[in-house]
């Protein structure tokens, strides 16, 4: 069984990273975690983001959570802030979509268009097909 002593093993790694991070600009991935987000399934999304960031070994990424973004029917919502780039809002997320965003957008720098929020004739949609038509 795991004991807290094992933490000592990842201690050095952690200290190295903390020092590294000081002089870097980081990408922020923010998950909406108000009642609306939680009920819609934000927690598995948050976990998937964390696990994928760890799996891909991305070090200059901060995962964070926020309250109600104000668009409850589109929850779970994930916002990506890359330094020097416009904010990207992903809506109606699930764990699989979240993992894809970490790999394709965060690591490879390619925004996953079909999950982003779209505004069509003043109405907010996330139907990528409808927008193309």
């Amino acid at each position, binding site marked *: 069984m795991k004991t807290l002593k094992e*933490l000592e093993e990842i201690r050095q790694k*952690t200290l190295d990273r903390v020092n590294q991070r000081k002089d870097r600009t980081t990408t922020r991935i923010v998950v909406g975690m108000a*009642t609306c987000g939680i009920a819609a399934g934000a*927690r598995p999304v948050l976990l998937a983001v964390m696990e994928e960031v760890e799996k891909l070994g991305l070090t200059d990424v901060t995962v964070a959570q926020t309250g109600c973004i104000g668009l409850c029917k589109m929850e779970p919502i994930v916002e990506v802030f890359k330094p020097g780039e416009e904010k990207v809002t992903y809506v109606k997320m699930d764990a699989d979509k979240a993992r894809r965003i970490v790999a394709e957008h965060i690591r490879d720098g390619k925004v996953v268009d079909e999950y982003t929020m779209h505004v069509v004739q003043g109405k907010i949609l996330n139907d990528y097909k409808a927008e193309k038509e």
Partner: protein
Amino acid sequence: MREISLHIMDIIENSITANATFIEVKIKENILDNLLIMKIKDNGKGIDSETLKNIKDPFVTSRTTRKVGLGLSLFEATCLRCNGYLDIKSELGVGTEVTAVMEYNNIDRPPLGKMEETIISALLNPGVDLVYEHYYNEKSFLLDTREVKKILGTEEINTPDILIWIKDYIKENLKEISGGAF
């Protein structure tokens, strides 16, 4: 909510929004007395007595995005459905304590769910210390993030590698105290 741990997460989010820096989460699975007791206590800014009177009303909320706040109302509904109650005590400048009680074997009681995920979600917030105590009958498990920070030699434990380790640590220990019920 499908799991009680999601309600608990919601209440912890309230604490964080109230600028809490220290949160205590206590779960008691008291099967012999047929009780599930949950306490979430914080040192946040507290709630004034006027607001506290109507706090469980879904149309009372401190959020600014809309006039409906369902967190406490939903949690209370689940408690009442399971022959229990939800109680909230608060003092301005001191903090807030939410107690939720349910009948353990009530057929309407949702599963407790993934407590480990709830705890690490809360730990993503920098500047929050958390003590998590979980009892299963007479056996118990305790996690104190101040201890984790001391071992790691850093205040910064809100990174994926550490949080995922903590998640597995909690999960294994809950399994241990409950004899595999998790």
